[in-house]
């Protein structure tokens, strides 16, 4: 047992003495400082000076402005770099920080506080937050008119509304059902514990993961717009959009479930001399069936909600109906549709959570 206490500094704060490591750290620290000071000077000039002080309505933007700001940032950074006001040096652990002082009281944090306050002020300006608009006479009258109409829903359109709702539910169901087998297969290829045995399978794993991440990061709303051009406005476009998104989301959930299973049955099946497919069928599948079922039902629930939104951009169902009445400013009809949507979402949410709880 060694009696000498190891240095207590956290690893990222320890002073690094090796030449290359140190110079690379200095460059990174300087870049952090330049970016922070560049940002500070740019928004100070654009928003605080041009908007708030000069009250310019349409401040012109040229690419020379951010470049100039970076230049200013570089000058300030170089001046302050060796002082304790450098966030870059502090975060790369390039100077000793007094252990007894909390981080919040370090000198470099004052620049941090300044940037947070500055960003808040700029944010208010960019979001055009205005109490005057919020409480304006004309605005309030308009809102009152819509709210009164919403609370007096027009039950004359209940029939087409229910039909549209049924369309939405079926559309969501078909999207879930069609994506199921694809997601099921992809789930195995995206499970690290099954795929990390050989370089080839690991390459496939990375490829599938990459595809899943990319396709999941494109919102179904965007897919719905693309598909409504491709196959025409209607439930089919919405269904395809939901399908694509469901495949990626379900495959991701499935693969995480596979990664969490116990290795025991897999080991046991391998030890009997079973074929790899048999190992998966007997060692993996029985462990994942119930969680899969649970995820899939939940996905249907999500798809019903998404199908409503997708309808707004031409994906069919009750969403499309809502968009049409809203375009005509028929608020009593919109009021009814909102009620129907709320009831459906509530029923789906309630029953899916009940079913999922009962198959645990």
């Amino acid at each position: 047992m060694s009696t000498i206490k190891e240095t207590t500094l956290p690893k990222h704060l320890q002073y690094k003495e090796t030449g290359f490591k140190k110079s690379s750290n200095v460059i990174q620290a300087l870049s952090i400082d330049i970016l922070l000071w560049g940002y500070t000077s740019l928004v100070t000039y654009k928003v605080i000076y041009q908007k708030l002080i000069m009250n310019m309505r349409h401040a012109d933007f040229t690419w020379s402005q951010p470049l100039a700001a970076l230049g200013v940032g570089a000058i300030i950074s170089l001046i302050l770099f060796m002082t304790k006001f450098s966030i870059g040096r502090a975060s790369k652990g390039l100077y000793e920080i007094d252990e007894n002082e909390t981080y919040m009281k370090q000198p470099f944090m004052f620049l941090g506080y300044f940037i947070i306050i500055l960003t808040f002020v700029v944010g208010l300006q960019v979001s055009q937050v205005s109490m005057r608009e919020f409480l304006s006479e004309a605005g309030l009258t308009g809102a009152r008119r819509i709210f009164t109409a919403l609370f007096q829903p027009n039950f004359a359109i209940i029939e087409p509304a229910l039909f549209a709702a049924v369309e939405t539910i079926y559309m969501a169901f078909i999207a879930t059902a069609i994506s199921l087998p694809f997601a099921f297969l992809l789930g195995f290829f995206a499970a690290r514990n099954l795929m990390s045995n050989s370089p080839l399978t690991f390459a496939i794993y990375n490829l599938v993961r990459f595809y899943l991440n990319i396709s999941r990061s494109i919102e179904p709303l965007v897919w719905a717009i693309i598909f409504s051009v491709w196959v025409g406005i209607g439930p089919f476009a919405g269904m395809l959009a939901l399908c694509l998104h469901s495949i990626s989301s379900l495959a991701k959930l499935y693969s995480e479930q596979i990664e969490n299973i116990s290795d025991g049955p897999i080991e046991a099946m391998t030890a009997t001399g079973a074929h790899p497919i048999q190992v998966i069928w007997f060692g993996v599948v029985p462990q994942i069936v119930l969680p899969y079922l649970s995820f899939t039902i939940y996905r249907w629930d999500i798809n019903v909600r998404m199908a409503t939104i997708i309808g707004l951009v031409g994906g069919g169902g009750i969403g499309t109906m809502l968009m049409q009445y809203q375009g005509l400013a028929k608020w009593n009809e919109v009021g009814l549709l909102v009620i129907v949507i709320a009831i459906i979402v509530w029923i789906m949410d309630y029953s899916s959570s009940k079913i999922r709880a009962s198959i645990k």
Partner: protein
Amino acid sequence: MSTNILEVKDLQKVYPNGTHALRGVSFDVVKGEFLVIIGLSGSGKSTLLRCINRLHDPSSGSVKFNEEEVTTIKGSDLRQVRSKIGMIFQHFNLIPRKTVLTNVLTGTLSKTSVTKSIFGIYSEEDRAKALSLIELVGLSGKENHRADNLSGGQQQRVAIARALMQNPKMLLADEPVASLDPATSHSVMQYLKKVNEELGVTILCNLHFLSLVRQYATRVIALKGGELIYEGSPKEIDEEWFRTIYGEEAVEVTID
């Protein structure tokens, strides 16, 4: 013909994280033996068993099963060898939510085609054999019970039946009684003894309790830090050997 069913020579295993689990282990196993491997947790016992049927790949050295080198074979050759070596585990490793019968039938997977096994189609002989093995381990009438609803000792007996379904020449048992109570431990060990004596299956078994070792083993090897430090009869393990294997401060705990 040699009477050795297994010959292990200079077996080394280094895990990717740098753990040197086995440092040149060599020993032979004679057909029909009940060989027990003892040693502390982390001494390499489990790794040793898993290197024999290649659940883990050894880093170097040789393992010969029935005079066939197993460290280099792949694919169907490897599955062929595995099918002749049954294995049972500390945590039983049965398939959850499946019946006892289905679990025992998985012992024939290596002889059943992939499609047939996926649709659960097994031959009549296999079913009859599975039922007779369930009877052998004293679980008649439980064949349609879910395996994960059985007690620990019963689950381990299902695992023994599954291993026997393979018609194994050798059985690897990785701490088969470590998660069972003393009475159940003896019952499971009795079944292993029966398998060894009546069916003539060679057994390699990892154990913790020396009282069980003395009662069931025909020969003992001991591992310490990945090296073989003792080989001999279970009766020859005395106080001194015990302290060498388990450390100076160890006190023997008995189970009876």
